[in-house]
């Protein structure tokens, strides 16, 4: 609601002098849409077209085939471990960074963002250097018959690495903007740490938390490069959904590859819908406040 009133006032203010001629507007819109159609919409449509080209029977057969089901199960398992770990980390990091003043804070924020700038392949490789047969812990792990690389543990570790920043980087600016007054009031009134967090902080950050979790989950389920390095590609055992797509595609089984890919594309679309919904929940209070101030 707030967005509508806001943009309508600015539209009134945007008079002829600050508006392009209509042919320019149409040409720019047309060019932007052409670019997005070519690079976004056509590839998206193609995934579903290729998946269903040979009919629903082929489609469902590719999805309920045992290797595909085990890939789905593994992907869900990995996300179910990686996302909660990064959720706890994100809340802890944001609490320390947003609610307290200490030296080296900016360095800490940069370090949290680090995994975003590391190539997925390198993200996988570093775990091979530690847990692989030739790695630091390799001989010890082999002695005790523990497998990390080419096993589920390695996949979880690589996934946790690439998704570390997602929740923390949503919460830090949000909690910084909210300040510490409410928590300080709660503590002054006798609330303990847990009560302060769960009754005061958590209700304030719930949408930001959900937002970060949605993005974190999408990346955790879709990660390819890092997982590919540590997985060993063992069908029915260490194959996640994206890796299963690759195997099917390399076997020229295109219909099945796109069928499995369409599941991941659906996940992406659901992610975008949830993201848009949650985004409006986050920005609405802020825009209401803005509007209030300008009035």
């Amino acid at each position: 609601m707030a967005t509508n009133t806001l943009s309508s006032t600015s539209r009134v203010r945007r008079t002829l002098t600050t508006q392009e001629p209509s042919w320019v507007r149409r040409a720019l819109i047309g060019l932007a849409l052409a670019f997005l159609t070519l690079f976004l919409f056509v590839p998206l449509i193609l995934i579903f077209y290729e998946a269903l080209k040979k009919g629903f029977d082929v489609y469902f057969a590719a999805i309920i085939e045992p290797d595909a089901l085990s890939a789905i199960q593994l992907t869900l398992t990995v996300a179910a471990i990686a996302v909660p770990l990064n959720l706890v980390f994100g809340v802890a990091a944001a609490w320390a960074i947003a609610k307290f003043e200490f030296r080296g804070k900016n360095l800490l924020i940069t370090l949290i963002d680090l995994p975003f700038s590391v190539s997925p392949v390198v993200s996988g490789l570093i775990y091979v250097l530690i847990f692989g047969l030739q790695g630091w812990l390799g001989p010890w792990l082999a002695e005790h018959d523990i497998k990390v690389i080419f096993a589920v543990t390695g996949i979880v570790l690589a996934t946790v690495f690439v998704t570390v920043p997602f929740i923390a980087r949503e919460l830090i600016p949000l909690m910084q903007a909210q300040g510490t007054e409410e928590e300080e009031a709660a503590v002054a009134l006798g609330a303990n740490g847990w009560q302060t967090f769960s009754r005061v902080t958590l209700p304030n950050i719930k949408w930001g938390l959900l937002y970060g979790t949605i993005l974190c989950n999408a990346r955790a389920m879709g990660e390819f490069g890092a997982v590919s390095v540590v997985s060993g590609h063992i069908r029915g055992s260490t194959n996640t959904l994206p890796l299963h797509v690759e195997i099917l595609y390399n076997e020229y089984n295109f219909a099945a590859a796109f069928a499995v890919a369409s599941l991941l594309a659906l996940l992406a679309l659901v992610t975008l819908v949830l993201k848009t919904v949650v985004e409006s929940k986050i920005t609405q209070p802020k825009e209401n406040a803005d509007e209030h101030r300008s009035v």
Partner: protein
Amino acid sequence: MSRFKQHSILPGFNLALGFTLLYLSLIVLIPLSAAFIRTTELSWQEFWFAVTTPRVMASYRLTFGASFAAALVNAVFGLLVAWVLVRYRFPGKKLIDALVDLPFALPTAVAGIALTALYAGNGWIGQYLEPLGIKVAFTPIGVFVALTFIGLPFVVRTVQPVLEDIESELEEAAAMLGANRLQTFLRIIFPTIFPALMTGFALAFARAIGEYGSVIFIAGNMPMVSEITPLLIITKLEQYDYAGATALAVVMLVISFILLLVINLLQWWGRRRSALA
């Protein structure tokens, strides 16, 4: 302790910071340092030789060239998309705004096979390009296409908020003083959004350099021609050449860190610029 941290009555600082540092060390810092420590097993000459062989040099040229070209295209069209989304009204705008983030949400392997099927000789787009003598799939152009897809949201999402914040008074003043729309754009609007545009460009470039999943399907992966550096790391790993793979990984990491520094400087520049304005 008192000099390190300002006093606060809120509880949980030691626990929260302690856990954060422990987690970050175990998951991120120690594993990343492993790459640097393991390369010290090589002498400087061995390291230099491993990261400058002709095949590796060819992969740098492709990775950086295609990433730069893709980031440039994204800077131009990302600015255009951001402009259209902020300034104009048209049907389906909300849907399109939401879909801009698709490359962030779509797993890279899925993007890779979709783009390959699209641009292959018999694909929806490839069939029209092939008669013109343009081959996209399984050539360096394919790498460029995949990296353009991957980097698409960065410029849009960095420029969009800055464009939304521009006060229309400034533009009105420019118009009253006799500037036409193009002059207003070039002299008023463009300088304001330039730091954000550069940040978006750098983010798209940094992401493209490390990209793997979407590229390997469409690239064809021919050594010396269409083989990207991340793929070369995997190839070396599969040949049990751990030292060679690690050396290349260190090169990639150093470049990523430099880019991260550049991006932080650009963001600082943008914030200072908007604070002054």
